[in-house]
């Protein structure tokens, strides 16, 4: 089973929940940081890394000598990564999405394959936990192709728990689309509610069961709760607002280990996620 921890809003506690969840989850389990733009799960799980590969995207390299400025490459490129201006062929490698269209249509053989580094894929062990992550190269704008390279190393022989990037755009969709269950981490604030709504709407077409972890409860307002009730989105776990959680988090500790009274809540969350995946979620409070 693949579980993705996602959220519309950033900073709601995806990584906090992810680190605790993998720690209490039945082994074997693989923890995957797919928030490749700012991966931070490793700060909590502190894995020993044993492998690394560089992820690259294929891009066109032009040969001005052979180019007849026919413009076929420029026409097929939806991203203006290759353009003919006058007699001159210009490429903008950082804008290329790697579709290979220009190479396919060039009648003169003026384009050859080059590569752009996207970032790195890293893996190792955090105790009994298999660990996997991606890290986008600084300055790189496209994370989905790197995420695809990370996902090639998902181990389907065990349960996989993914720390997804926030938001509802391509990176977030790419992180959750192969999951069996999507857990949306949010908070009872107007921002939390607004972005929870966006996330639910964006992920609903994927057709996977979704549930909510309501983090930092006990303040804010009722918007997110009302929304969950109205849309039938089950609240799988509430984590009360507690200064100690923030303190432990800021020290790089895993809450389920550092605060024993929270451990049981994550064990309960794990059970709920399994029920949700199996389609027989027991009654939940829903606020």
């Amino acid at each position: 089973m693949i579980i993705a921890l996602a959220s519309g809003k950033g900073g709601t506690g995806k990584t906090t929940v992810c680190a605790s969840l993998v720690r209490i989850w039945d082994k074997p389990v693989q923890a995957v940081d797919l928030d490749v733009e700012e991966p931070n799960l490793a700060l909590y799980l502190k894995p020993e890394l044993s492998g690394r590969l560089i992820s690259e995207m294929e891009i066109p390299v032009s040969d001005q000598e052979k180019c007849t400025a026919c413009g076929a490459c420029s026409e097929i490129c939806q991203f203006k990564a290759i353009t003919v201006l006058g007699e001159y062929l210009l490429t903008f490698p950082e804008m290329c999405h790697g579709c290979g269209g220009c190479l396919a249509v060039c009648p003169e053989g003026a384009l050859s394959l080059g590569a752009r580094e996207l970032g790195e894929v890293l893996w190792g062990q955090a105790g009994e936990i298999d660990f996997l992550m991606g890290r986008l190269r600084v300055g790189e704008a496209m994370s989905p192709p790197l995420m695809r390279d990370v996902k090639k190393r998902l181990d389907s022989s065990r349960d996989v728990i993914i720390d997804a990037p926030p938001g509802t755009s391509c990176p977030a969709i790419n992180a959750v689309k192969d999951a069996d269950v999507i857990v949306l981490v949010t908070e009872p604030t107007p921002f939390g509610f607004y972005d929870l709504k966006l996330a639910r709407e964006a992920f609903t077409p994927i057709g996977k069961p979704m549930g909510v972890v309501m983090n930092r409860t006990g303040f804010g307002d009722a918007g997110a709760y009302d929304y969950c009730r109205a849309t039938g989105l089950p609240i799988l776990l509430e984590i009360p607002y507690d200064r100690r959680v923030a303190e432990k988090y800021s020290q790089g500790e895993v809450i389920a280990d550092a605060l024993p009274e929270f451990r049981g809540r994550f064990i309960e969350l794990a059970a709920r996620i399994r029920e949700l995946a199996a389609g027989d979620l027991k009654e939940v409070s829903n606020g």
Partner: protein
Amino acid sequence: MAKIVVTCQGQSLDDKVDPRFGRAANFLVVDSETLEFQVLDNSATNSMAQGAGIQSAQTVANAGAEAVLTGFVGPKAFQALNAANIKIGQGLEGVTVREAVARFNAGEVEIASKPSREGHWR
């Protein structure tokens, strides 16, 4: 005579120069002597997620212009305009197209040697 392209918020010589190059509303292709002009609609670039500057540079090159007058040109559009050998006059936001052309004719527009803005992606 010189054919120059001016980014424009509207469709006449008395409308303001559009400060944006890549996502300019319109391009006015102006004959710098007679002030005869033709309007090129550039609104299609507004629906582009990226590459608007390059697309616009291509439009300007296809119009056969020798210079472009605008507010700001980003790095990729700059590179593209340079490749097409088109002069770039920047910092003309706030004035009308007529005024921008007059300044260009009087030699008061500095032809830029580098882009005035970082790209949006960094």
